[in-house]
C-alpha cells in the first residue's frame, strides 16, 4: 500500500511563500501549521503577525489574524486574549520586532504571565528592511548598518532576550531551538507544540526562540546559512530549555 507520509498541513494555505530560498520563516510557518493541525485548534486560534519579513504570515496560516504595529504584537495579543481567554493566541515575531522595539511589551507580557505563545524568530538581522543589525547580530557580523562588523563599544552585545524573559515571574516555558537540520526542526516543532499546550493549560507565558537562516542578508547559500547557525550562532545562543516551570505550575497559581 502506498501511503503519503508527508504532505502540506491543512492550516497552511496554498499560497506560495514570498520568502527567499532557504529562509527559515518558511519552515517555521509550516511547523506552526502542523502544530495547529495536530492540536486541532484551527477554529479557535488567533495569530498576530509582526512587521518583519513575516508580515504577510496571514497569507499562509489559515487562522484568524490581526496585525500589530512593529514590536507591539504581544500587546495586541494581550488585548485579544484577555477579552477571549477561550481562544489560543500566538504572536509570530522577528528578533528586531521582539528584542529591539518590542522589548518593553515582551518583558511585561512575560511578567504578567499572559497566556500567550510567542514564536520568536531569531535570524540575527532585520530581514525585511534589508539586513540591518538586529539586537541579536553577532559581534563582528557585517550588516548594512555595521559595514565593518558589529562593534561592541558602538553597537553593544548580542541581546539575550530569552534569558531576560526567564527572569520574569510570569514566564513558564522558554526554549531556544533552530531550524537548521531535520533533527532541530523536529525539536522545534515539539517545542512549539509544548508552548501552545502551556497556553491551553493556562499555565502562563510561553515562548520559543528559533534560530533561523536569512541567506539573503547573510549573503550565504541556504546550506551554508544553516552551517553558520550550527557553527557560530549557537555559541552565542545555545539551544536549550531556558525555563520550564510547567511542572510546578508556578505561573498559574501563585499570588492571586
Amino acid at each position, binding site marked *: 500500500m502506498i501511503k503519503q507520509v508527508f504532505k502540506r498541513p491543512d492550516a497552511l494555505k496554498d499560497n506560495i511563500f514570498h520568502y527567499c530560498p532557504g529562509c527559515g520563516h518558511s519552515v517555521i510557518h509550516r511547523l506552526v501549521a502542523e502544530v495547529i493541525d495536530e492540536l486541532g485548534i*484551527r*477554529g*479557535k*486560534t*488567533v495569530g*498576530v503577525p509582526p512587521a518583519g519579513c513575516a*508580515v*504577510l504570515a*496571514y497569507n499562509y*496560516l*489559515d*487562522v*484568524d*489574524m*490581526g*496585525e*500589530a*504595529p512593529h514590536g*507591539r504584537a504581544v*500587546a*495586541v*495579543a*494581550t*488585548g*485579544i*486574549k*484577555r*477579552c*477571549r481567554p477561550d*481562544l489560543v493566541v500566538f504572536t509570530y515575531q522577528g528578533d528586531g520586532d521582539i528584542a529591539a522595539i518590542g522589548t*518593553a*511589551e515582551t*518583558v*511585561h507580557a512575560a511578567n504578567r504571565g499572559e497566556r500567550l505563545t510567542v514564536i520568536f524568530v531569531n535570524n540575527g538581522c532585520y530581514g525585511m528592511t534589508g539586513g540591518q543589525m538586529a539586537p541579536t547580530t553577532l559581534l563582528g557580523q557585517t550588516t548594512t548598518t555595521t559595514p565593518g562588523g558589529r562593534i561592541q563599544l558602538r553597537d553593544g552585545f548580542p541581546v539575550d532576550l530569552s534569558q531576560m524573559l526567564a527572569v520574569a515571574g510570569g514566564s513558564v516555558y522558554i526554549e531556544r531551538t533552530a531550524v537548521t537540520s531535520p533533527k532541530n526542526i523536529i525539536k522545534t516543532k515539539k517545542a512549539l507544540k509544548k508552548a501552545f499546550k502551556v497556553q491551553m493549560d493556562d499555565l502562563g507565558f510561553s515562548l520559543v526562540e528559533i534560530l533561523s537562516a536569512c541567506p539573503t542578508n547573510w549573503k550565504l547559500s541556504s546550506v551554508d546559512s544553516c552551517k553558520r547557525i550550527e557553527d557560530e550562532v549557537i555559541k552565542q545562543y545555545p539551544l536549550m530549555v531556558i525555563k520550564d516551570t510547567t511542572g510546578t505550575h508556578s505561573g498559574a497559581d501563585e499570588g492571586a
Partner: protein
Amino acid sequence: MGKKRLMRGSHVIAEAATLAGCRFYAGYPITPQNELPEYLSGRFAKLEDATFIQAESELAAINMVMGASMTGVRAMTSSSSPGISLKQEGISYMAGMELPAVVANIMRGGPGLGNIAPSQQDYFQATRGGGHGDYRTIVLAPHSGQELVTLTMKAFDLADTYRTPVILLGDGLMGQMMEPVTFPEPIEPSALPKKEWTLDGAMERDSRLICSLRLDPFKMEQHNWKLARKYAAICERETEHESYLLDDAVVAVVAFGTAARIAKGAVNRVRKEGLKAGLFRPITLWPFPENEIRALTRSVKHILVFEMNFGQMVEDVRLSVGEKATVHFHGRPGGIISTPHEIADAITRLVYRHELC
C-alpha cells in the same frame, strides 16, 4: 435617569464608559486623568466580563486596546497630552484597520512635559490626525459633567457605527471638576449589535484578517478613498453643536469644552450690559460644524474664537466662514483658565471697536 451624583469628571467618564458596555480598558497613569483608571480598576474588578490593565506604557495600552477591539469588545484607553502623542502610531493603525475604540485625552499644558493644568493645546493633533497617513478621528468635546456622560456613551456608539477610533477631548478641568450628574440605564454588551468582522477563531468559516498593510499602491489608494467616503459620510451626518443666544447676536464667540463654559458666562455678562453676543459651541470638533458656522454669518459679521491655546480651532472657523465674517482670536496657552470677565472684556472691546451696538 438615576439620581443626581456629585462626581469628578474622570470618574464620570469611567462610569459612563462602563454603562455604555465598555469592557476593556488599558491605560498608563498620567495627571490629570489618573482618577479615570483608578476608578475603573475598582469598577471592572466587580464585573465578570471586564478587563482592566495598567499597561507598562501608553504604547502598550493603545495596542492592547487594538487587540481587544479586534475581538469586538468595546474598548477604551485614556491619557493626557504626552501620553496621547505616544499613542499616535496606534491610532493611525486603528484608523487604517477600521477598528472602533474610544481614546480620552484629558489635555494638559504643553508642549513637552509642560504642566498639569487644563489646556486645549492638542486640538490639531486630535482633529488633523497626529499620526501618519490620511485618516481622521471623530473628536467630541464635552463642556460639563453631564455631557461627559452623554458624549462618552455616544463615543462608543459612533466608534462602532463607523468602525473608527473616537477621541473624547477634555482637559484637566473637565477631568478634575466635580458636578452633579445623572446616568442612564446600563447597556449590556450582549445587547449590542453583533459585529461580523471580529477575530474569534475561524470555526466553520474562512479565516479572517484585520490589517492595515496594503503593499499594492492601487489597493492602498482604494482603501484610502473608502476611508475618505466614510469620513465624508460622518461629516454629513454627525456634526453636533450648541447655539447659545445667537438668534439676535451680532457677535458670536466660538469656543469648545472648558473654554465654551467660560465663554457662556461671558456672553451672559455682556448680555446684561445690552451687548448682542452669543456663543457657538462645536461639540464635534471633527467633523467640524462648518456649514452651521457659515450659516451664522448671515447675521454675524464678527466672530471671536476663544481657545485655551495659541490658535488652533480658529483655522477651522476661518475655513468655515471664508471672508463672510471677520474672525478674531483670543487665546491663553499653557494652563491658564480665563475668567468669564476676561472674555466679556474681549467681547466688549470687539463690539465697541467695530461699532456693533
